């Protein structure tokens, strides 16, 4: 490549709203181990895409992710961000432009929250005032009051607050790429759900290219644009959108990973308006309604809860139709037959594996 290391890093850094990541035949073999941890892994992440790596512990998903910021160096293969081979760049400078969030958070206990967030800006030589403004902005972004939290120390914060600081710290220099290793794994279910919702809202405005590692398939379905289901040695069993993976799991392994209730999980991805709505008159007036931008799962929830045969669908304050259990089933339609066949051991359609 003709351009120097510095220009390459600057070019990557400038593209703050998501870069493409290409992993090409990446292999990691540790010395004195006959089996590689990651074997011949290839994948392309599009700019602004949120890609989930899902798989059981020890399948190599974290190792694969950590090769992107070179915490772990690949044995062979190539990795490029925005078309620039990152393995030829200075690893330390590269990492300043890749946000990194880990499950244990790893906040620096001897630095205040503000100092923690300011670490990368300081490494990049930002001015004091620019850094201070950025810290306040980021704390507000992750819904922590700067006046209240900037001067506190990490151990004075709850787990959920610490993880928000972790995310803010990773976003400090507005990196085009974020790597997240089970960031919400250690929080309680209520906090986790809250953090996930905030994270989705944040990603909607930021549009970073994110590689997100989790072993929780429901989290993958909830957050991911695309999900890579991984098995041993980081082999891609299926790489597709959550809806597609739920509708047609590529094989037994993927089906077993989805677990029970695939149909219910799929419903949470489909808006109510995808169903063919019944006439407005079918639903009892003035009772429970669902919004047109709710999901079919919300609709089903309301139907089960109320025991009504039909429920009104509301858009902009006026009834646009009604929904019933039968109409919800129709949306899942023929696809649900596929999952039944998979359950009997036949192999499903091959996934989109690069």
């Amino acid at each position, binding site marked *: 490549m003709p351009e120097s290391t510095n220009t390459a890093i600057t070019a990557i850094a400038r593209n703050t709203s998501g870069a493409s990541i290409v992993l090409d035949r990446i292999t990691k073999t540790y010395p004195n181990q006959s089996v590689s941890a990651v074997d011949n892994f290839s994948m392309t992440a599009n700019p602004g895409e949120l890609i989930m790596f899902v798989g059981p512990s020890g399948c190599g998903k974290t190792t694969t992710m950590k090769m992107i*910021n070179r*915490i772990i160096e690949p044995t062979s293969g190539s990795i490029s961000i925005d078309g620039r081979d990152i393995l030829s760049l200075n690893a*330390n*400078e*590269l*990492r*300043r*432009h890749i946000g*990194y969030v*880990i499950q*244990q*958070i*790893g*906040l*620096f*206990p*001897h*630095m*205040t929250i503000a100092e923690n967030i300011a*670490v*990368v800006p300081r*490494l990049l030589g930002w001015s004091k005032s620019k850094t201070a403004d950025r810290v306040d902005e980021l704390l507000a972004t992750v819904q922590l009051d700067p006046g209240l939290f900037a001067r506190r*120390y*990490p*151990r*004075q*914060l*709850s787990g*959920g*607050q610490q993880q928000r600081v972790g995310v803010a*710290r990773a976003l400090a220099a507005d990196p085009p790429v974020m*790597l997240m290793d089970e960031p919400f794994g250690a929080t*309680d279910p*209520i*906090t986790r759900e*809250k953090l996930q919702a905030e994270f989705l809202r944040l990603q909607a405005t930021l549009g970073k290219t994110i590689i997100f590692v989790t072993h929780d398939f429901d989290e993958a379905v909830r957050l991911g644009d695309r999900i890579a289901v991984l098995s041993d040695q980081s082999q891609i069993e299926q790489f597709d959108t959550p809806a597609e993976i739920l509708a047609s799991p590529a094989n037994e392994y993927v089906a077993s990973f989805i677990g029970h209730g695939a149909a219910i999980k799929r419903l949470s991805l489909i808006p109510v308006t995808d169903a063919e709505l019944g006439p407005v008159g079918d639903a009892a007036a003035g009772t429970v309604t669902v919004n047109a931008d709710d999901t079919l799962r919300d609709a089903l929830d309301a139907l089960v809860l109320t025991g009504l045969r039909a429920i009104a669908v509301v858009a902009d304050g006026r009834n646009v139709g009604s929904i019933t259990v039968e109409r919800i089933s129709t949306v899942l339609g023929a696809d649900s037959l596929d999952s039944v066949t998979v359950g009997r051991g036949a192999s499903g359609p091959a996934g989109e594996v690069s």
Partner: protein
Amino acid sequence: MSIQEQAIATELNPVDEPQAGTRHFTVRRFVPLIIVVVALALLYWWIASVPLDSIERRTLNWSYILNRTREHLALTFAASALVAVLAIPAGILLSRTRSKIARGIVLGIANIGQATPAVGVVILLAIIWQIGFSTALVALVAYSFLPVLRNTMVGLQQVDASVRESAKGMGMTPNQVLWRIEMPLAVPVIAAGLRTALVFAVGVATIATFINAGGLGDMIVNGLKLQRFPVLATGAVLVACIALLIDWLAGIAEDYLTPKGS
């Protein structure tokens, strides 16, 4: 729903920690100081009230006592400073080397230094080298090297692996990780090692008298040899008081050096 609200409420209002500074100065903190003052006052009152013979008078006067104390402190602080300058960098280097052999050799030598009776080291060194201050200094350094070396290594190793990984993942160079993250977090442990070394040195410096290097050991040994109990007691009480006082000061220094958040 109410549980969720509660969870959010506690999350937004964590219990504030007591402010740093107030917790350092409790009554208990001053107990060693009070003991030292009382002990010195009792000693003074006792020496002033007993009749002293000519031998005792030659020793139990201000200029003699101050000179011995000065020698004792000079030896203690010079040895501790040397240990800090040598053992802390050695500890940093050893904790960063992957060579188990190098680690084994240095720790082994430091162990021998501490395990060998200090009197033996002092006298052996005097026989093969010379008598006086330098020899006593070398013996003291050898003796108090290990706690600082070991605490530096432990202090660096006990830094949370996730803290180290996130520092690296954010793009710090290995040197930046060491000086901005690992060292500040290791300071309390290293300071504790130095405090141990200082107190060791105060005690062991008493044997400098055997090779004519002065110190309060002179008073103790003379008091024993000439069977002058007031001289012996004054020397012993002074050494004990210095050790307590230095430990007390080092404890305060340790608190101030400990980073606030940890």
